[in-house]
């Protein structure tokens, strides 16, 4: 009886790991290829038959990036903008989600629709009127132009996500705090927010990524090289006559490393124990 139980469990575990490995291949192989390409010479990337691992490891792409201050500044700009966008979006979204979740008011449905609807125009057509607006507001070629623009793209999802989270938390929680005399604002920050950490983390991550990877508005709303972000920097390597393939790959890899670390760090900290029935009444 015992051995059968263990075997069954062992088989399940084996199947699980096989599935996990297959998934890892699907998700990770292209990225692995990208990483290898970043340490190959441009010519080797196109060699036939294609090889995964480089014949001659070549760090020139990385050397070029690290030794060019303009390129390093791209990374700084991207992080700065993405960081600010994340913090501000979470702030605005938590407030808005509290409103949608805990209150019933006249224009609730319409406002909800409005916020989602702002996603619905293809950015490419918004480009020219948007550009005109930003110039009129004298925000052209500033960090603020990018920060505010990205917030408009990230807020709808953030609000949706946070509203959903707050909806799963029963009102007894709020009331428990408010009975002690605290206002609803306090109920929000003291109670709801800490419990919604998994939601906040995944929303924050998503917001950061959207902001980090955005290209079109980063290109249009910035003018000088010192304001540009990583995606623009990558596109600049796509010259009229030739591409610097390995440098493009290297910039991508460099870009994703810190985000990956951030992701690992936050997930470890907040996932464990959040399921531990914190809402048991």
């Amino acid at each position, binding site marked *: 009886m015992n051995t059968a139980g263990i075997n069954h469990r062992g088989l399940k575990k084996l199947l699980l790991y096989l599935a996990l490995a297959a998934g890892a291949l699907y998700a990770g192989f292209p990225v692995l290829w990208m990483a290898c390409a970043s340490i190959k010479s441009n010519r080797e990337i196109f060699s036939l038959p294609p090889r995964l691992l480089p014949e001659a490891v070549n760090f020139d792409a990385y050397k070029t990036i690290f030794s060019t201050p303009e390129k390093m500044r791209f990374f700084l700009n991207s992080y700065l903008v993405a960081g600010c966008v994340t913090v501000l979006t979470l702030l*605005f979204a938590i407030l808005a989600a509290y*409103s949608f979740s805990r209150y019933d008011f006249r224009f609730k449905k319409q406002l909800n629709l409005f916020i989602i609807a702002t996603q619905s125009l293809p950015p490419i057509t918004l480009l020219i009127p*948007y550009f005109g607006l930003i110039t009129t507001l004298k925000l052209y070629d500033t960090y603020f132009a990018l920060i*505010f623009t990205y917030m408009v793209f990230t807020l709808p999802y953030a609000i949706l996500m946070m509203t959903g989270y707050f909806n799963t938390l029963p009102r007894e929680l709020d009331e428990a705090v408010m009975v002690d005399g605290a206002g609803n604002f306090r109920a929000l920050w003291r109670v709801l927010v800490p419990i919604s950490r998994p939601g906040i983390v995944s929303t924050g991550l998503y917001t950061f990524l959207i902001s980090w990877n955005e290209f079109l508005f980063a290109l249009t709303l910035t003018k000088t090289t010192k304001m540009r972000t990583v995606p623009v920097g990558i596109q600049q390597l796509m010259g009229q006559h030739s591409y610097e393939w390995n440098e493009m790959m290297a910039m991508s890899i460099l870009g994703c490393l810190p985000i990956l670390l951030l*992701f690992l760090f936050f997930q470890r900290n907040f996932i464990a124990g959040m399921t531990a029935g914190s809402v048991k009444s």
Partner: protein
Amino acid sequence: MAQVTGAAVTGARLKRLATPYAYLFPTLMLMALLMVVPMIMVVQYSLMDNVITNKHPQFVGLENYAKVFQDEVFLEAAGHTLYFTVMSVIFHMVVGLMFALLLNSKLLGSVPKAIFRAVYVLPWMFTATIVAILWRLLLDPSGVINYILKFTGLAQSYAEWFGSSATALNAVTFVNIWAGYPFYMVSLLAGLQGVPADLYEAAMIDGAGSVRRFWHITIPQLMPIIRSISMLDFIWTMQVFPLVWLTTGGGPIHATEMLSTYTYKLAFSSYKFSLASASAVVILVFSLAIAFVYVKYQKARD
């Protein structure tokens, strides 16, 4: 006996009425300023002729819309966009859910869990330009994917994934699925961890197997999240541009033409901004319809 004056009551009531709006105020202000204004301008453009290229555009009403709907390329693009979007959303969900379930398994230790989680989230970390270029290299006729397929005997010859009208649309959809599933995976994983454990325990006591538990507990619990991310993803995917543009440019011969590439070409290649605006407004209306249905459903549930 507490005496409350009329003014105090009205004051308190006003405060209560205004509070939800106050919480929404920062968001609304930002959206109104930075979105509504340009949107109105685009709608305006769509009702005029010779916008941007001509300093004195004239009002032409719905003429641009008529032209756009009569263009067979537009209709083709609409069809492709629908196919692309629906397939993407479905498979994003399937792959995302599969990975989320795998990662949520209790049989998985915390260290392997962290490693696999990081690997699965990788496709998300790269800007659309790089994803497009990377897959163009991988799916090149003499690229590594074809080589592996031939080597393992799964294919007879080198397929032209992006270059052939038969496979281009599916190739582009495949790449989009790869690039977009982490969004679902992360949201669903967070959702899975929010499902109360006692629900499962109760079901197990009642003798429900894992499949039944999945369909009757997991899925219903995840439904709100599934609905909202599907809707958002649907709207976003309808507008996907750099991925398609940089891999196929809408070709071969319109095989992968999407509403977004169609609009872009009208605007920046033909300089017909009025028509491009009309096309954009059409996309806007479709998206609004979906958003409307979603919000209505939400209201009904509440």
